[in-house]
């Protein structure tokens, strides 16, 4: 007798908080690499022989215009990173490493949803408040969703595999 039983079956569930934090840190590491040219400029312009606070204050008074431009550029690049990755593949490199991806409550993940879920990267009021509000929402919602995720009707899920022996193993 030949039984046609699938060897494994996958299903998804809300991604755990520690995993999401790890994935975010991995993405931040990649973004930091992208920002190296800006870092080099700041390093060169940073007054030497002062404490980091004094040097930063001096730097911000000498180059206020340039620093504002740099701040906007860095934010735009970070936003572009998440937007291009998530709208095309439903996951960033960090999420891929930790076996997570984004799903839309409306079915197909749309570009506007990806844009809204990354609004916390826009350095303008009131979006900049999301940097504080978003993580707070993650802690207090059952589905570990950020406010911008709720607004964009998206969730980050983790993929599990169910093997024949009944143990759930993350893929």
């Amino acid at each position, binding site marked *: 007798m030949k039984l046609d039983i699938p060897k494994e079956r996958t299903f998804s569930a809300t991604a755990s908080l520690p995993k999401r934090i790890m994935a975010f840190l991995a993405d931040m590491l990649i973004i930091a690499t992208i920002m190296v040219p800006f870092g080099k400029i700041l390093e060169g312009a940073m007054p030497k022989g002062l404490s980091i606070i004094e040097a930063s204050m*001096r730097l911000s008074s000498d180059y206020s215009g340039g620093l504002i431009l740099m701040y906007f550029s860095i934010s735009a690049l970070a936003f572009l990173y998440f937007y291009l990755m998530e709208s095309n593949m439903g996951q960033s490199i960090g999420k891929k490493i930790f076996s997570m991806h984004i799903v839309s409550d409306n079915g197909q993940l749309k570009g506007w949803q990806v844009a809204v879920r990354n609004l916390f990267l826009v350095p303008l009021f009131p979006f900049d408040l999301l940097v504080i509000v978003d993580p707070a929402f993650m802690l207090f919602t059952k589905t570990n969703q950020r406010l911008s995720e709720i607004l964009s009707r998206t969730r980050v899920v983790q993929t599990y595999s169910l093997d024949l022996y009944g143990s759930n193993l993350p893929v």
Partner: protein
Amino acid sequence: MRGNKIDLSAKQEPRFRWGFAVFVVLLLLAISFMLAGVISLFSGFDEGSLGSNVALISINGAIVGDDDSGYFFESVTSSADAVEMIEKADRNPGIKAIILEINSPGGSAVASEEIVNAVKKTNKTTVAWIREMGASGAYWVASSADYVVANRMSVTGSIGVVGSYLEFPGLLEEYNVTYRRLVSGKYKDIGSPYKEMTEEENEVFQQALDAMRDYFAGDVAKNRKMSRKDIDKVANGLFYLGAQAKDLGLVDEIGGKEEVTAYIEKKEGIKAEIAEYKKEKTLLDIFGEAAAKQSFFIGKGVGASFFDRKIISAISITA
């Protein structure tokens, strides 16, 4: 698994395309390099000063108060810019010494003094490096540095003040034009090009120039720690070659960049890493300059069709 929403519909994880991911990262890195370059260029970020401990500030061409007064093709140094750069270098604790690279015939007495005062105010070691020319006001600036190095064939000195203007009452007479003098205050129109200067006016002018020269020479004497008698011997407006200036005590050492660097390294006990401090041009400056040059040529062309002579009627006092 608090609050976990389990989806058993067996959706597969989306297919991750590593090629696309690497492309995005490289693309953003390229954009980052471009943006950083543009911002650095137009926002005055001093990437060149990375790890530097010596600031090099150029005093090139005539010394003027502002560089927006029509010096289209002449190389000029604005005292405002030079002072700003000196103060910027002074504020940077990593900078141990300032080199003033001088190649200037002098210029406005007031502008020269502004730079002199800024050099004196700094707590850093200052070295003047006279290349081809460091005369008059430019020498005044050089003398305010702690140490002066000059090329043996450079032109230095020329300590004195020039006051000059054109006088053309004869020309007016030729064209039957009368200069009607209506002044309240005896010397109000002193230096007017439309009348001959009287002996008395000449005396007044000369006294003012002598006073300026005295101040100039006195300050140079103080800077170079020379006696008033010694400075008066050389402060006659004459220029000296670098080698002569060294014998007269106007210069400390004959040489170039190597000698300047060696002096700083010995005095400060550092390995000199030099960064050029210069006023960065903003995008607006570049466009403005280009537009000004265009306008200058158009204006010159139009003007030339009306006049075939240049008439200059301003008194110029330079050091």
